[in-house]
């Protein structure tokens, strides 16, 4: 029996194995993804992002529990950084998720970022497709601890929760582009610490200064994940944002935009892999570099010549 057949029979072991094959891009994984994609489409995806140590995992720990109690079939993907030197990773998010009720069938999967720099792994949205097809209706995606510009999460989810802490900066930080612009909801976590009220106030002012107005008023919730303070409010806002997107038709529009990017990504990656395999194999590139070093060519002409060769096969 194939893994895919076992998957259709509801085997969690098969789901886990298929996720690994998707991550490893094992021969045939695209065909599996096509099938999985077509049998999904019901899952709502909530992204939780923010700087390292802000409490993302601890928030997800609570939120996933609340969603499971509300009767949802919940999955969690948590991404931690892979070493750019060894490829190794210490995946420690799961450690913070001890309160998630296992008896409610919550599925948690840790991923190494494996060379991606946008806060997720390249395979994260594909893994989400598998979880969707398996029947999970609610997914929490926790990013790597991010700075200001690792924003891949916006293409992988429906609602973005940006998690900050009282120490995350002043009113000017709150006005900056990037991370501060992508929040559908802010959680100011560790709100028992000094400066939490100021942080909430600075975020509120920054949101009021936005020139691009949306009908959605970005809620700012002061939370304490480990003390379980205000988590139900944060959860209510997530549910509220989902309803807002659905009622305004924005959800469909958002997903259409995401799909356009996804198709482009599949195309570009296929071309990239093809180029890597054919044109850019080591020896050819070495030879070109040597020619440039000898003054017989330049990088721009050489690149263009390769492109012509690729496009016209001459």
């Amino acid at each position, binding site marked *: 029996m194939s893994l895919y057949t076992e998957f259709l029979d509801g*085997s969690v072991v098969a789901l886990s194995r298929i996720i*690994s094959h998707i991550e490893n891009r094992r021969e045939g994984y695209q065909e599996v993804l096509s099938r999985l994609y077509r049998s999904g489409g019901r899952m709502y995806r909530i992204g939780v992002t923010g700087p390292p140590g802000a409490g993302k995992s601890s928030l997800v720990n609570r939120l996933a529990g609340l969603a499971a109690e509300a009767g949802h079939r919940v999955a969690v993907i948590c991404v931690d950084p892979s070493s750019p030197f060894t*490829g190794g*990773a210490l995946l420690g998010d799961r*450690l913070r998720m001890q309160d998630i009720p*296992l008896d409610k069938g919550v599925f*948690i*999967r840790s991923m190494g970022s494996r060379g991606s720099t946008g806060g997720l792994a390249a395979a994260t949205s594909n893994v989400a497709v598998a979880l969707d097809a398996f029947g999970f209706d609610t997914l929490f995606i926790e990013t790597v601890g991010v700075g200001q510009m690792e924003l891949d999460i916006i293409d992988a989810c429906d609602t973005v929760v940006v998690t900050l802490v009282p120490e995350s900066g002043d009113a000017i930080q709150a006005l900056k582009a990037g991370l501060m612009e992508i929040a559908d909801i802010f959680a100011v976590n560790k709100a028992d610490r000094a400066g939490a009220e100021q942080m909430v106030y600075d975020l509120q002012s920054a949101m009021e200064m936005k020139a691009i107005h949306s009908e959605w008023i970005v809620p700012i919730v002061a939370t304490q994940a480990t003390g379980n303070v205000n988590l139900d409010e944060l959860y209510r806002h997530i549910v509220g944002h989902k309803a807002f997107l659905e009622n305004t038709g924005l959800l469909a529009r958002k997903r259409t935009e995401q799909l356009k990017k996804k198709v482009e990504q599949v195309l570009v990656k296929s071309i990239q892999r093809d180029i890597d395999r054919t044109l850019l194999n080591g020896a050819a590139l070495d030879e070109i570099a040597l020619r440039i070093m000898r003054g017989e060519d330049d990088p721009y002409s050489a690149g263009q010549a390769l492109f012509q060769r690729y496009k016209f096969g001459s």
Partner: protein
Amino acid sequence: MSEKIRVLLAKPGLDGHDRGVKVVAAALRDAGMEVIYTGLRQTPEQIVTAAIQEDVDVVGVSILSGAHMTLFPAIIDLLRQRGGGDKLVFGGGIIPDEDIAALEKAGVSKLFTPGASTVDIIDWVRKAVAARKKDEKLL
């Protein structure tokens, strides 16, 4: 893309000494593996659920409490029941010689005792995982 070795490291039962398991976690990470550390005071149920959801190749269990004769078999039995019987289980801790043979008979692949070097642990994990690459059909 080469398939990455995934390892779950766990500490079951009432045992708060996690320095050893953290050293092993760092060593396996630096050896290029993906290491999932689940933290202290885990039940066999939690460990096995994590091992299956994370699809790890190897489960490393650290026990310094003396409860190894109970906890190792409990984890192995549960893994087998849940369809994870192909995962290798290895362990580390203060385990008397006379217990090691019994545990190996019960399905523990390898036990490391005090003084074991991280190089040996890395080496064992690599070889053991390579030796049992499974052939399965995706579609």
